[in-house]
């Protein structure tokens, strides 16, 4: 490009000079053109230097979205979005794409104690686990919190432990004798198994990993791409922790972290020893001032994000801070998982307590409760549910898992949503929607920003051929074309899936694409299908 400019300007110059020698044209014009050429030459040289600098920077891997190693100022530098005043330090990312689904039934107040007596850990919550893991307990055994429940025979070093103490009351089997869930009847006062922890400042990485895998901390880590429990020998290029959740009715991290600030910092210190890169914290810059546990965390890189959902998704943070390259792995954790790791190193005990948001318009009082991993939904929702014909979801309405009332909270879930089933016919429903419903479309009234919808599970239309373009892209704040990723998956074109950035995506990132899809396509399950075939290939 620069070469071309140079040649052009030289050609122009010779042209002018030859014209001069013929004695035509005014002096002013001649000098004017020479000046323009001179400017062009200097500009071309500067451009060349800038590009060389950028290449050098990328060689050292220090180039990213926020730094400009060129000679010229980036256009983005002039139109930099304004940071909120509390968002000091770290980088700032203002995201525009996305959509906040405003629903009725947000949890309020501080976390109260929930009287949950039954808990369950389900091997099925861990992707890639063999269907029949080796179960170390039997019905009737008494266990402490932190005692091993089961492990995968393919990876016996990774132990899955009990979140509470009590008695194993049931080992439920699923299809083909697979282990569906191990149900524990909890003691009133939880007894913890006490272990001696290694000193994180002096111990080797292998010793630290060995401690974490044998004490139930390892399954708390999620590995991207593919969302699996990592292999112990993996060294992640970075570790990402999103300290806020923008999903519909998601719990407020400030409520979750209250009282656990020290454990959170300790957890971050541990994680810092596991990666060759950095521990990155994604922090909420949308308006509410985040807890000092996040803003004041040490030993981490901080990144502020503002914008509509999915601005709080860890996948979005990874994409904007340090995208997954080649076969690199990135680990992600939620705030509560970090706290559990921190508490283990502070106390030598496995504290899997969780603050869970009970949400949804069908609850008598949406609230925060304090319980443990895998709590029984029936116990959590006791005397708090209105009406019939309801759906109970462990998680949020976009990515959560449908559970029966007898089900349990998912391993990583910190939210329960209860909403109405939408199994009704609606006269001319497609033309004249009578009840308000959330939508990104301009054809459906939005009722203003503060309106809270009472959404139900009706599909509002049938599945159709894919027609509308640009819809998925408008709700995914990434430099990725989700529509074309889906196309590559459906045609099973592995190379293209990879090239288009499938490895950077997870279900939660494309959940909004599925929500907005006019043709009602199952975007999340298509994405998972693609990830599975990509995983097989690599």
């Amino acid at each position: 490009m620069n070469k071309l400019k140079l040649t052009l300007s030289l050609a122009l110059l010779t042209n002018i000079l030859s014209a001069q020698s013929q004695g035509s044209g005014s002096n002013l014009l001649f000098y004017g053109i020479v000046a323009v050429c001179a400017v062009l030459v200097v500009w071309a040289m500067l451009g060349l230097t800038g590009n060389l600098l950028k290449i050098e920077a990328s060689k050292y891997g220090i180039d990213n979205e926020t730094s400009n190693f060129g000679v010229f100022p980036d256009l983005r530098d002039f139109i930099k979005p304004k940071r909120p005043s509390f968002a000091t330090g770290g980088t700032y990312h203002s995201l525009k794409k996305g959509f906040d689904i405003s629903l009725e039934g947000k949890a309020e107040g501080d976390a109260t104690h929930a009287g949950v007596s039954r808990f369950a850990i389900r091997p099925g919550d861990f992707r890639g686990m063999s269907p029949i893991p080796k179960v170390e307990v039997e019905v009737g055994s008494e266990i402490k919190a932190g005692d091993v429940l089961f492990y995968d025979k393919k990876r016996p070093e990774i132990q899955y432990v009990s979140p509470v103490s009590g008695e194993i009351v049931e080992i439920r089997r699923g299809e083909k004798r697979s282990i569906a869930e191990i149900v524990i009847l909890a003691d009133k006062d939880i007894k913890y198994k006490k272990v001696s922890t290694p000193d994180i400042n002096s111990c080797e990485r292998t010793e630290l990993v060995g401690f974490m895998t044998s004490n139930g901390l390892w399954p708390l880590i999620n590995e991207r791409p593919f969302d699996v429990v990592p292999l112990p020998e993996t060294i992640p290029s970075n570790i990402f922790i999103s300290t806020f959740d923008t999903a519909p009715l998601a719990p407020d991290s400030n409520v979750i972290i209250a009282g656990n600030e020290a454990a959170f910092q300790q957890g971050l210190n541990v994680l810092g020893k596991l990666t060759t890169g950095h521990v990155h914290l994604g922090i909420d810059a949308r308006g509410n001032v985040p807890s000092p546990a996040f803003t004041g965390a040490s030993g981490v890189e901080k990144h502020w994000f503002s914008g509509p959902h999915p601005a709080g998704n860890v996948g979005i943070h990874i994409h904007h801070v340090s995208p997954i390259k080649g076969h690199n792995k990135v680990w992600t954790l939620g705030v509560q998982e970090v706290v559990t790791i921190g508490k283990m190193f502070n106390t030598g005990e496995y504290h899997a307590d969780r603050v869970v948001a009970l949400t949804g318009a069908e609850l008598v009082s949406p609230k925060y409760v304090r319980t443990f991993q895998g709590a029984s939904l029936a116990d959590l929702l006791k005397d708090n549910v209105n009406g019939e014909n309801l759906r109970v979801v462990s998680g949020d309405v976009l990515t959560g898992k449908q559970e029966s009332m007898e089900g349990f909270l998912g391993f990583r879930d910190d939210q329960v949503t209860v909403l109405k089933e939408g199994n009704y016919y609606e006269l001319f429903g497609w033309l004249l929607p009578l009840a308000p419903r959330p939508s990104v479309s301009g054809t459906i009234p939005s009722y203003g920003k503060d309106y809270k919808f009472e959404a139900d599970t009706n599909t509002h239309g049938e599945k159709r051929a894919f027609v509308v373009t640009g819809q998925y892209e408008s709700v995914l704040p990434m430099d990725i074309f989700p529509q074309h990723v889906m196309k590559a998956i459906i045609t099973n074109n592995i190379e293209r899936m990879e090239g288009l950035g499938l490895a950077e995506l997870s279900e939660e990132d494309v959940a909004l694409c599925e929500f907005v899809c006019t043709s009602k396509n199952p975007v999340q399950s298509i994405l998972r299908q693609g990830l599975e075939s990509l995983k097989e290939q690599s």
Partner: protein
Amino acid sequence: MGLIDFLKSIEPDKKKSPLLHTAYDAFFTFAYAPDTVTKGGTHIKDGMDLKRLMVTVVIAMQLCYLFGTYNIGHQHFVAAGEYLGFIEGFHLKLAHGLIKLLPIYIVSMAVGLGIEFYFAAKKGHAVEEGYLVTGALIPLIMPPDLPLWILTLSIVFAVIIGKEAFGGTGMNIWNIALLSRVFVFFAYPLTIAGDQCWISGYEKISGGASADYGWFHTGFFNTLFEWMGLNTFNTATTVVDGFSGATPLALAYEGGWEKVTSVFSEGQMIWGAIPGSIGETNKVFIVIGALILILTRVASWRIMAGMLVGLIGTTWILNALGSTPFMTVTWTQHLMMGSFLFAMAFMATDPVTASSTDKGKWVYGILIGFIGIIIRVMNPAYPEGWMLAILLLNTFAPTIDYFVIESNIKKRFSRA
């Protein structure tokens, strides 16, 4: 809840009569949004569906329908030199317009939906709503005097070859409505070329030719109007001497903007009281339709803006060259003539056949604007280019996307 029980009770058996069941299902889901609930994936869904999307487009073109119907009648009487004021002879113009438009609309819907229902039943899936828009667009882009058998053939060709052969809604490469128009244009050039087809209701368009009234004119409406004490259709009506029926574009090709304004005023062209395809003459109503589509985000504003940019840029270049009278026509004047705005609002924005990436949409729009004006100004045979420009770019839309996507892939690999 009586209606729904009744509808449920008459549901035909799916196995015994698939075609009947498909038709029933199409009408039932038209009356009632189904009771299906989400399963796996997101638990709630956006209130938008394909039916609503399609009907929004149809609503956006309703003003064009109203005006187009009346204008058929208006042009008919202008040719005869009668009722020259726009609202003079209102009932006659409306009646004539309806006599011409309704058969075209009914044939368009019946033939197209018939084929859709047949293929849906054969493939065993629900009827897609795509044809609701296509079937509503086709009458608007046809000349008012088009024989119905040609219309039928063109729709059969467009829907079967252009759509079902590719796999149905969402799979087609070319815009179906334009494909039917291009079929008429290439298969029956004598019917649609020249100035003969834009005025309806005469044996031919030349001085002294007499009006061609059927039973609806002389039997039905004349009886009605007589009873109401109004003027009636006069079978002795003839085309006035010297009337050519030429459209502004034909005039502009002959003698530039001067020649156009010697026949039509600017106001006439903007408000659409000129001969032309049925729905494409009134620029104000088309712009209103385009605004509805942009504000509801049903159609891509990028494509529309791209087309405008392409038109303006190309016109500037042609103005600078200025070697024929048509080349000196400015871009504002181009907007007043022909079907650019209609093509921009309703044709190029078809999401299935347009580029699917945001950058691609800009390129796609700009190239349509560029090529369309080139065909309009330079092509001596047929002075309108949007149909061909859009079909050409439909063909290249995947290529445009390919380059946008490849650059994204390249960027990702260069990072690794």
